[in-house]
């Protein structure tokens, strides 16, 4: 049942993505100033929001783990962090490609870009530290604390384009600066990518459960031997 749900969600997201791509590449017109390259926004912005959503889920699950010591919360936290890091990297790479076209450079040490990069580094540190701790309870506790520390960076990324004058384009979503058709395309693509991302988290969650089962069986075997 559960496996079927993952497959269904993943294929639904993939189908929606194909439909969106048709709309984005063939229906929507070029943007007046930027030309064709502006279309990267339909992947760049959703990737960032989805990454932050997963980091936020990881934060909630980490707090929940500290409060209730449920290993399920820890598993969800690590699964969503991992997928969140992937989306954050997608965000950085798409942004870099856009920057090469519009600014003529692949990278600039702008506050928003730097803070997003720091965010990726923090969560990579989280993923690197986990395997270094053998005891599952200790691993959960320490990673939960680390996740809380790491999340402090997310608001800085989010607000950086308001706090400082950055090279990164200003906010377009809240100010309504986007034409209706483009805003809708952005929303649809966000939903499609979120479905795929959620499917990935569920897949990762399964492998985490299997991993734990193997670990506990191994311990059992060691006790009996």
């Amino acid at each position, binding site marked *: 049942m559960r496996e079927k749900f993952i497959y269904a969600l993943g294929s639904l997201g993939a189908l929606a993505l194909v439909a969106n791509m048709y709309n984005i590449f063939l229906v929507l017109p070029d943007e007046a100033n930027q030309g064709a390259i502006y279309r990267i926004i339909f992947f760049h912005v959703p990737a960032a929001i989805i990454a932050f959503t997963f980091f936020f889920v990881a934060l909630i699950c980490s707090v929940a783990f*500290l409060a209730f010591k449920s290993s399920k919360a820890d598993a969800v936290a690590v699964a969503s962090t991992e997928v969140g890091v992937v989306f954050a990297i997608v965000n950085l790479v798409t942004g870099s490609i856009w920057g090469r076209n519009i600014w003529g450079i692949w990278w600039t040490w702008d506050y928003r870009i*730097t*803070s997003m990069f*720091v965010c990726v*580094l*923090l969560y990579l*540190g989280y993923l*690197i*530290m986990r395997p*270094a*701790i*053998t005891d599952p*309870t*200790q691993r959960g*506790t*320490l990673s*939960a*604390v*680390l996740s*809380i*520390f*790491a999340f*402090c*960076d997310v608001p*800085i990324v989010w607000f950086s384009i308001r*706090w400082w004058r950055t090279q990164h384009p200003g906010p377009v979503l809240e100010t309504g600066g986007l034409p209706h058709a483009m805003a809708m395309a952005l929303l649809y693509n966000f939903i499609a990518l979120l479905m795929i991302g959620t499917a990935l988290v569920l897949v990762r969650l399964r492998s985490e459960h299997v991993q734990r089962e193997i670990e506990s069986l191994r311990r059992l075997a060691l006790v009996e031997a």
Partner: protein
Amino acid sequence: MNAFGAAIAIARKDLRSELRSKEATNAAVSFALVILLILSFAFEPTGEEIHAMAGGLLWIVFAFSGTLILNRTFARELQNDALEALIAAPVPGWALFLGKAASSMVMMLVVELVSLPVFAIFYGVTLVWTLAPVILLGTWALVVVGVSFSALTVNVQLREVMLPLLIYPTLVPALIASMMLTGNLLDGQTFSGDNITWLRLLVGFDIIYTALAVTLIDIVLVG
């Protein structure tokens, strides 16, 4: 003994043992000098643009040599299972944290006091008194994050690798603010305009992470 007394006792114990062995501060001071030497090859050390880079240089030295001290903060308790005893002692976690942070702060300041004049001589920079609050606030940021992560990684395999991997990304907002402020102040500016924004970021960082560390330290140490 109340909790503050316990914190002071822990700090004094750490400082006394450091004063006798000098293992962390000696290493940190010499490492700071080595970094100052190596950085001089990266660009023209007496050139005009040195003022623009001085802030960054100084904080790279502080942050890198600081890890040598912060790495030891909890690791020094591993011998003879002293850490277990410390956790079992009737002392609240936050007092333990504050004691550890205070002793690390003193050691860091000692290293900084030694490397500051050397830095000024090597790179032809004139030091100003307005730097003092920036150095105190920036060092506190280093110490708070460093001591928390030192507690976090004390029982982890590859502890020495983990700590730098975790603290530098976390410290980035504080380091940027300290670097900018130091550079601007060495350039003759005062606390106004953009510098106030940087100062706010630095103070905000200190407050948020001190609060987080004091709240979470019990969970980190006891589990």
